[in-house]
């Protein structure tokens, strides 16, 4: 007897409506965004928000428990409401389909929140993408702030001696130079007969790049009018004579503004004596206590002998802690007594060291606080997103369950 196994294929691919309803999911996404926005505002009002990343004192306290709790509550409520709305609007009565709708809604809403964060609406919601972006940028800017703070201390330390370059005075000189160029252009236009049209000169002024302007400023500060005029003539289409006239005009204006009307010294001399006055004040303030007394006048006299290069060399040596080199430079270039120099260098070096150390320490602390805060925030964002997924799936399930309970009659069918 032979056994025969018959295999029968049954086509179960019946026509059935597609269970997914993008309209319902879209409505759910909007409901979810609206609810989370409302919860965010409420959190802001009662002070449990986690979004104030610009406030470093706030960050220093760490991410509060209340903020984490509020983030999680927001995610649970908004995803649950959005998903159950989507499941009910899609009209499905199947629990699994409801859960899948909840899952799709979670995906769509997460993508939407990341996109919103990318578009700069970082405070729109308290979850996922927005927080990741915000935390990352906060860490970055803290590190940047720390670096620039340290940098400016160095600049401040050397700049106090090297004086004029990069200061407000230099910036004013630069802008005055530009204005004077424009005025000259206007004069040329009135006088007429020039080969260069006003339009051309204006264009060439715009062509003067920052480096050329810096050079011009430096030459003017050094009283080097000829080089400045040559630079103008070569960089622009102005003739040498026009350039000379222009530079003379600028120089007179500057002398009037910054120079000392009581003496015949050039602009460079006046600026230098002003700078030396300020630097001498700073140095005397560093004078180590209990040592030989160094008067401001003697420091000032000494500094008069230094050219600006040795001045910055001394400053740099002091800042880098190479006190011996600073001493050598001062002994070589000034007529201060050895003992006076020792006292000055000791005082200045200590002052710079402690100030730089304080800045570095503060920067380290800020970076540390922000990194910790960002790490906590990222962890909370991850937990929030995960719980949001759970809430969305649960919401979809409950929505489908409600549809079935309300709109479908379920009968037990017993087959005999």
């Amino acid at each position: 007897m032979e056994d025969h196994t018959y295999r029968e294929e049954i086509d179960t691919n019946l026509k059935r409506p597609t269970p997914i309803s993008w309209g319902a999911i879209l409505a759910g996404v909007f409901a979810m965004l609206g609810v989370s926005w409302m919860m965010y505002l409420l959190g802001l009002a009662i002070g449990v928000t986690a979004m104030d990343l610009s406030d470093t004192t706030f960050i220093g306290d760490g991410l509060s428990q209340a903020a984490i709790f509020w983030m999680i509550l927001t995610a649970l409520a908004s995803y649950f409401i959005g998903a159950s709305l989507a499941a009910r609007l899609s009209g499905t009565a199947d629990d699994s389909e409801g859960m899948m709708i909840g899952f799709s809604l979670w995906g769509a809403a997460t993508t939407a929140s990341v996109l919103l964060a990318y578009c700069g609406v970082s405070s729109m919601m308290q979850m996922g993408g927005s927080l990741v972006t915000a935390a990352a940028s906060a860490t970055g800017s803290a590190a940047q702030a720390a670096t620039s703070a340290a940098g400016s201390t160095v600049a401040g330390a050397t700049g106090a001696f090297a004086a004029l370059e990069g200061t407000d005075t230099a910036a004013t000189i630069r802008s005055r130079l530009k204005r004077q160029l424009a005025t000259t252009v206007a004069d040329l236009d009135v006088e007429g007969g020039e080969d260069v049209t006003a339009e051309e000169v204006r264009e060439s002024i715009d062509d003067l790049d920052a480096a050329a302007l810096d050079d011009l400023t430096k030459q003017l500060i050094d009283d080097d009018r000829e080089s400045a005029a040559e630079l103008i003539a070569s960089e622009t289409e102005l003739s040498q004579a026009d350039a000379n006239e222009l530079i003379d005009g600028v120089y007179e204006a500057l002398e009037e503004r910054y120079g000392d009307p009581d003496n015949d010294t050039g602009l460079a001399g006046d600026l230098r004596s002003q700078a030396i006055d300020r630097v001498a004040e700073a140095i005397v303030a560093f004078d180590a206590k209990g040592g030989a007394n160094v008067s401001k006048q003697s420091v000032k006299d000494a500094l008069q002998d230094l050219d600006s290069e040795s001045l910055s060399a001394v400053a740099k040596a002091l800042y880098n802690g190479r006190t011996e080199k600073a001493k050598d430079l001062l002994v070589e270039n000034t007529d201060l007594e050895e003992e006076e120099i020792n006292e000055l260098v000791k005082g200045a070096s200590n002052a710079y060291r402690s100030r730089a150390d304080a800045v570095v320490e503060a920067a380290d602390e800020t970076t540390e606080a922000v990194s910790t805060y960002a790490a906590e925030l990222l962890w909370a964002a991850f937990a929030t997103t995960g719980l949001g997924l759970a809430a969305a799936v649960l919401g979809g399930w409950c929505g489908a369950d409600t549809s079935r309970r309300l709109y479908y009659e379920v009968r037990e069918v017993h087959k005999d």
Partner: protein
Amino acid sequence: MRFGLIGTVIVILLIAALLQNVAIGGVGGLILLVLIILLLMGRI
């Protein structure tokens, strides 16, 4: 019943807005959320 409940909560929220009272508004808002969830679940 559902309209009565939601209407009452909205009136409470309006009063909170007029008084600029965060406490009343917060509690009212949370109650409104619970009501919406119950509504979605077909329980009210």
